Structure formats: structure tokens, C-alpha cells
């Protein structure tokens, strides 16, 4: 579904991503991206989602080169993302914002998302006034509207407890399987990634270190040395 071909992203003179090539996709596949701070995880998501233009390389989505396409263009063709820092509309009620986005994307099955993410009790609340954990779920709900084919999630567990993170991951796991979509999750919580993801990619210093299933990654000597250490 998504082919990343020798992708480079520079911040001034600093190379945040260095010739990263990766294939992502498959119905119901949850792809985790882990790595130490500064590894280039969020930069990879920014480049794929169109938030940041790559310095070099290409991104192909469903066979089409989308490297120069706008964020809105990608969204209308089934690529959605959530953010590390919750990105919602604080003064709109949960209902108003979900309905506004559903109208734009022509999604008439909003109720399924509301139920799947347990948001029914919060619909009439301004989103800025609800608990942070619920705001994260609103953020994910906004990304799920329009039945995207590829869901990109940047640290969905940021600011949540380990238990809340696992709960959110399980929600996502179920949605990905049920809707037969692909999802990429960039996450610090290695345990959550290993327990829920089908494929894991490890980045380090802007380069791809390894890609494989969780068992292969846990056993990879380079990954253990560079990142997991005793955690494996």
C-alpha cells in the first residue's frame, strides 16, 4: 500500500531521516515504529502524511507517487493521521467536530466510530473540557472518519498511563482488524508495540535498523544493542 523509497529529510544541516526505505501495508496489519529519541520516527510520519516535504526520495501510495501532494489530497484518498500532541478543536463539542469532519469526508457511519471509541457520553461536551485520555480518543476518532485505508498514529500513548495506552492500542487493534485497514503506530511504549503490532520497524539516528515481526525484532542483536538493551 505504501512504499517509502530512500527517503531523506533534513532540518537545516541535520539529517533527520537518511535514505529510509520501507514497505507498509496489508489489510488489518498494524505496523509499529520504535526507536530512541531523535531516531526520526515522527519525521517519518510527517513526511509520509505530507506535513513535511522530503529533501530526497519518494513516497508511493497504492502505486502512485504522492511525494508532492497536499495533506488534504492525501486525506481524501484514505490516508489519515493522529498527533503526538492531541490535535482537536477545543471549543467545539465532540459531536460538532466529529460531524463537521464526517460531512467533509462524506462518512455517514459516524456512530460506529463513536461507539467503538466509547465517546457517546461526551458528545455534548466542548472537547477542551474533557479528560486527556478521552481527548486522545477524540483525536483518533477524527482520524478514523472517512474510512481511511492507512492510519498513521504518532505516539497515541503520549501522556497516558501504561494501562490507558494498552487500552487505546486494543481499541485500535480491533478497529484495524474489523475495518481491514493498515495502521502505522510510532510509539515509545515498546511493550505495547510488541504486544499489539504485527510488524515492527526500528529506526536509529535517522536510519532503518531492522524490520520484522515482534519476535524477530526482540532477537535482533543490533536492535538490542542500539535500543532495547536489557528491556528485551
Amino acid at each position, binding site marked *: 500500500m505504501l512504499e517509502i523509497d530512500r527517503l531523506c529529510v533534513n532540518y537545516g544541516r541535520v539529517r533527520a531521516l537518511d535514505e529510509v526505505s520501507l514497505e507498509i501495508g496489508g489489510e488489518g496489519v498494524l505496523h509499529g515504529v520504535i526507536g530512541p529519541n531523535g531516531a526520526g520516527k515522527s519525521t517519518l510520519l510527517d513526511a509520509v502524511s505530507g506535513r513535511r516535504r522530503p529533501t530526497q526520495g519518494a513516497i508511493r501510495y497504492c502505486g502512485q507517487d504522492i511525494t508532492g501532494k497536499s495533506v488534504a489530497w492525501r*486525506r481524501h484518498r484514505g490516508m489519515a493521521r493522529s498527533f503526538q500532541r492531541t490535535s*482537536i478543536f477545543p*471549543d467545539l463539542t465532540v459531536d460538532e467536530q466529529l460531524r*463537521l469532519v464526517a460531512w467533509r469526508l462524506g462518512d455517514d457511519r459516524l456512530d460506529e466510530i463513536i461507539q467503538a471509541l466509547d465517546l457517546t457520553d461526551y458528545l455534548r461536551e466542548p472537547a477542551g473540557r474533557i479528560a486527556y485520555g478521552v481527548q486522545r480518543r477524540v483525536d483518533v476518532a477524527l482520524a478514523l472518519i472517512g474510512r481511511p485505508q492507512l492510519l498513521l498514529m504518532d505516539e497515541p500513548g503520549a501522556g497516558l498511563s501504561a494501562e490507558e495506552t494498552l487500552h487505546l492500542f486494543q481499541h485500535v487493534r480491533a478497529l484495524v482488524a474489523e475495518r481491514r485497514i493498515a495502521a502505522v503506530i510510532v510509539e515509545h511504549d515498546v511493550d505495547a508495540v510488541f504486544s499489539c503490532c504485527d510488524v515492527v520497524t526500528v529506526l536509529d539516528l535517522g536510519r532503518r535498523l531492522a524490520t520484522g515481526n515482534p519476535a524477530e525484532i526482540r532477537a535482533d542483536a543490533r536492535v538490542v544493542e542500539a535500543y532495547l538493551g536489557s528491556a528485551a
Partner: protein
Amino acid sequence: MSGGAASPVAVRYSAVGAPLAALAATALFVVGAVAPIYAASEFTLRIGNQGLLLGMLALSVAFLMNQAGLVALGAASVYGGAGYLFAIGINNWDLSATQALLAAFVILVVYAAALGALIIRTNPLAFMMLTLAAGEMISHSVMLEGLRDYTSGADGLVVAFKGSILGLQAADFANPVHFWPLAWTATWISGLTIRAVRRSRLGAVLRAVRQNEERMRFSGFDTYAPRLMGFVLINAVAAVAGLLHVLNAGFVSPDSLGLSLSTNALVSALIGGVASAAGPIVGGLIFAFAQDEFGAYGVTQLLTGVAIVVFIVLFSKGVVGGLTSAARHLRRPSDPKGGAR
């Protein structure tokens, strides 16, 4: 427990409240259009007319502030520009009064669309400075020697049109008693239009873009076109107010283009409150009468300064916003479920 279905109390309130509110608004419109003609002096009506037109200008400024988080400082350039274009249409282009009105309106809408296309992408501070710059350029261009044949420089232009517009002669527009119902009706139409847009999908999109533009783009929205539409809309309202002003005054001068008038519109919006359509109009009326009261002592600028401080620091919701909040607060204790939200 939060959210959930609307309480029976809230449902009953809205079912009865909406027709009652519509009835009250209709009564207010009719009484407001007629009563001052009999109850107020010509002088008071003259100030009232100025207040309504200032209120329309404030309405346009407040809409963009509230919906898009943008402060336009060049509102007067469109307001005064409408007057100049109308006068030039009649004096230099030999247009009839109706043709001159339409020509002025269309030119200003096209101008607003072109200016908006250039500046609407910028951040709020840059937007404010660019609207100020555009307004000042227009304000000073009417003083250019090369344009004196059209604008008469600092002397301003007398506008004497022949024939009628909507059945009204020039003398009717100049008569404050005849002009009041027209200005009152135009103000209501502008207010209701702005209110409808606020409650429309365009209004919701503008508010959402103001709150989180990036999320809007990641939700598949074009964030440029809605803001441009909002900018053109407010300039259309300002142009209508400016056309009414020149019809009423029969004269247009560089004063009607300047920063001072733009500031007065902004202050009027703050006084009335930017969160409703009624607020800026009430603010315009308060400002016009206060200016008349205190202007005689030469303290208008002082009054403006004090009003800015008071209404930004102490009463940030403005008069109408504050009264609405107080009314809600008073109603709440009698409603065991917390009232309709």
C-alpha cells in the same frame, strides 16, 4: 455524567423558546423602525443613523475577529471607498444612481477578493498590519494630486444624484427621519445575514480553522477558501454601510476612509461584544451617542482609550455578551437540570 440526550426541560424550553424569541425579535424590529421617528428629535435620529452605520462596520470587524481570530484594521477604506466610488460613478462616469451603487459594490467586492487572496494566508499579526497598510494606502491615494479631478483631494466630494433609488430621492436619504427606517432595516438584514453565516457550516469551518488549522487540513479541508469567503463577506457588509453613509450624508471626505474610523469600528465591536450579531450594532449606537456627548468637551480620544481598556480588561464579553451571560446565570437556578446548553 456528562453529555447524553437533551433533558426534557431543555427540549421544552427550546420548543417554546424559539417561536417566542422570533416573535420578540419581530416586535423589536417593528417598534425599533417606527417608534424613534415619533419619539426622538431629528438630531437624535441623526446620531442614531451614524450609530447604526458604525454598528454595521463593527459587525463586519467582529465577525472576522470572532470566527477567524483575525483583526481587520482597514474596514474604513472599504466604507469610505464605497462613497468615493459612488460619487465618481455619478460625477465622472455618468452613471445613474442605481448603476453607480451597483458598480461601487461590485468593484469593492472584487477588490476585497483580490486583497484577501494575497493576505488571508498570513498569521493574525501580519494580517492586521497588511489590512492597516492597504487601508492607509487607499486613504492617502485619494489625496494624490493626479487624482484630484476625481477625488477633490482634502476637500472631499459632494454627491448630488438625480432620479431615485428604490423609490427614494436624494432628499429622502438626507432626511434623518426618512433614513432611520432604511438604516434600521439594512442593519437588521446585515445582522441576520451574519448570524446565519455564523450558524452555517461556513461559520463552523471558520471557527474550527481558527482553533486548529493543521487538524482541519488533516481532516481534508481547504482552509484557504473559507477564510477568503469570510473576508469578502465582511467587506461586502462594510461596502453596504459605506453606500448608505454617502447616500445619507451626500458628501464623502478622506475622514471616512481613515484609520480613526476603523479604530472606532473596532472599539464599537469591543463595547458591544464580538460573540453575537447584536453586540457590535449595540456597540456602534453606544459609541455614536457617547462620542456626541463627550466630543463637545474634546475628549473623544480619551473616551476611546478608556473604552478599550475597560472592555478588554474588565468586560471582555462586551455589553451584549455580558448581559447574555447574566441572563443565563439568572435562569440557571430555576432549571434543575442546568438549562439548555
